[in-house]
């Protein structure tokens, strides 16, 4: 067995053990962090591996979240079909916006994705009779179960989050070592050269973005399913910034960076929101400090300095 796979399995085993070791409050937090880490892993596929700095991933997160929550609330679907709706909805949204946004590059790409996400957020507000706008709506406990497992219980929720996290981590771990993942990295490093070598750069960027958006959408759907709430605030700008923050902090282009970044940021914001209402101040300070002093993030720096095999 190779070292990256062994490391991933070790992390998954440690997370499984953590549920029985940690106090309830922290294992509850960790369930939330794992879902957010899945979101950040999806984001990392676009930003960290392909070099597509999107400022609008909240659109995909919200597409998954609303795909699940609206179809459960208004069409009375059960969890599994609703998850399929969320999967299709986020892949579709990512496919369409990706096809348009990828006609631009660099700064224009960031602004276009930001604009699309803003339009998505406003659309959620506009259809207030279905989405209840910023206030959002609660999914009743009775429908939040898969195959008889109650996803609103601490244990059901934690292990559902862990399964989603593990599947995503193993898929991404395999993907970025496969030829497809290698060409994404080649595109990030030097797009002109990748084109010259004969790769269909545009199509691969689109595929990466669709995969990234779909994973983000699954995280959004899982968030609604596990925590029983969907609201327009998850479609707003801060939710596009959070995955960027997690990935930058943990290390862009590392498989475990999103988890590390999500753990650090979650607790940093959790601690500071006990002190002040202005908890986003922490996010701002971390962003500026990272760009100034640690552009490769925690694991990126670790890999560069000491552990070159780190996936």
């Amino acid at each position, binding site marked *: 067995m190779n070292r990256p796979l062994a490391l991933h399995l070790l992390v998954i085993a440690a997370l499984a053990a953590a549920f029985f070791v940690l106090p309830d409050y922290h294992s509850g937090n960790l369930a939330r962090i794992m879902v957010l880490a899945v979101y950040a892993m999806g984001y990392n596929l676009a930003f960290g591996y392909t070099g597509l700095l999107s400022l609008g991933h909240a659109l995909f997160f919200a597409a998954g979240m609303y795909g699940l929550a609206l179809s459960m609330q208004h069409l009375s679907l059960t969890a599994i079909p609703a998850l399929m709706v969320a999967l299709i909805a986020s892949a579709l949204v990512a496919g369409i916006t990706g096809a348009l*946004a990828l006609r631009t590059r660099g*700064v224009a790409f*960031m602004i276009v994705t930001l*604009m699309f996400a803003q339009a998505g957020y*406003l659309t959620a507000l*506009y259809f207030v009779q279905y989405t209840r706008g910023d206030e959002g709506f609660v999914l009743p406990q009775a429908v939040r179960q898969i195959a008889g497992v109650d996803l609103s219980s601490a244990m059901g929720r934690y292990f559902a989050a862990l399964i989603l996290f593990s599947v995503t981590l193993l898929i991404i771990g395999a993907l970025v070592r496969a030829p497809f993942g290698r060409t994404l990295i080649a595109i990030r490093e030097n797009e002109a050269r990748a084109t010259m070598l004969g790769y269909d750069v545009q199509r691969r960027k689109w595929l990466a973005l669709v995969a990234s958006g779909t994973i983000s959408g699954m995280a959004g759907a899982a968030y609604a399913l596990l925590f029983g709430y969907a609201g327009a605030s998850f479609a707003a700008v801060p939710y596009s910034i959070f995955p960027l923050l997690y990935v930058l902090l943990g290390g862009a282009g590392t498989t475990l960076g999103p988890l590390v970044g999500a753990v650090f940021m979650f607790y940093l914001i959790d601690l500071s929101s006990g002190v002040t209402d202005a908890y986003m*101040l922490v996010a*701002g300070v971390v962003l500026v400090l*990272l760009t*100034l002093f640690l552009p490769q993030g925690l694991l990126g720096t670790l890999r560069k300095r000491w552990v070159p095999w780190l996936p």
Partner: protein
Amino acid sequence: MDFGPHLMLAMLEGAVTAAILALTAMGLSVVFGVMRVVNVAHGEFYMLGAVIAWFVASTLGTHPAVGFVAALVIAPLLVGALAALIDITVLQRIGYDPERTIVATIGLLYILQQGTLMTFGPDARPVAPPFNTRLALPFAEWGENGLALYWPWGLSITSYKLFVIAAAAVILIALWLFMTRTRAGLIMRATQQDSAMARAFGIPVAKVYALVFGLGAALAAMGAVLVVPIQQAHYLMGGDPLLLSFIVVIIGGLGSLPGTVIAALLIGMSDGVISVFFSPTLAKILATLAVAMVLVFRPQGLLGKKPQ
């Protein structure tokens, strides 16, 4: 009110929006034009201008006009100095790399916004206008005796709003004269055209960048000082101007100054007219999507030139 007077009222309100927007967007455009930097924290400089205006006016506490004039001088200077400082301490150190600059300015956005929340608080606070007489406006209509003027009820504007339009025009003309007729403006344009060549000719490019970044922020602050007597100062007020300024700068062509003014008029007027007659949320959705499409299909802007 009939449709005609209603439309005229909407256009007057739109002209006020357009005047403020032209100033704010011009700040963003100057910074992008000279430095090729997208400043996501621009809306927060606007917000700081409004908050400082409230602070100056309420500290002086004399006649509203005194406080207002003091704010119009002090707020842009302070905000400009802060922006120049940010440029030197943050942006210069990351070498204006486009992606890292956006990430850093997103960070600055939250620092400025949340810092204001911690000090200024979550309440909206008003600033008294220096003068505020209500002027009824006439409207012409074909009556029984041919074309006649009449004064429809509700068709009026305050003298202060007219002043805002005039003041914005004066500031923009002054900026244009500064850019085209002074040595400092020449240096800025030289830096814009070719910063490496400008450096070779002994222009201190780093200083020019700090000044331009300060100037851009000061323009946003001026727009905000003009707007606080109409709209109260609040720590979240920077979001809408940022989005609208982006829209204006993109439609006008990134870095094109005349394009920015024309686009500000277009967007400001249509924003005023659309939000009188349609749902503001729907209008915003359509405007946002339209701008995204402009960037996708015509990235040089409606008025910008294709890159050589």
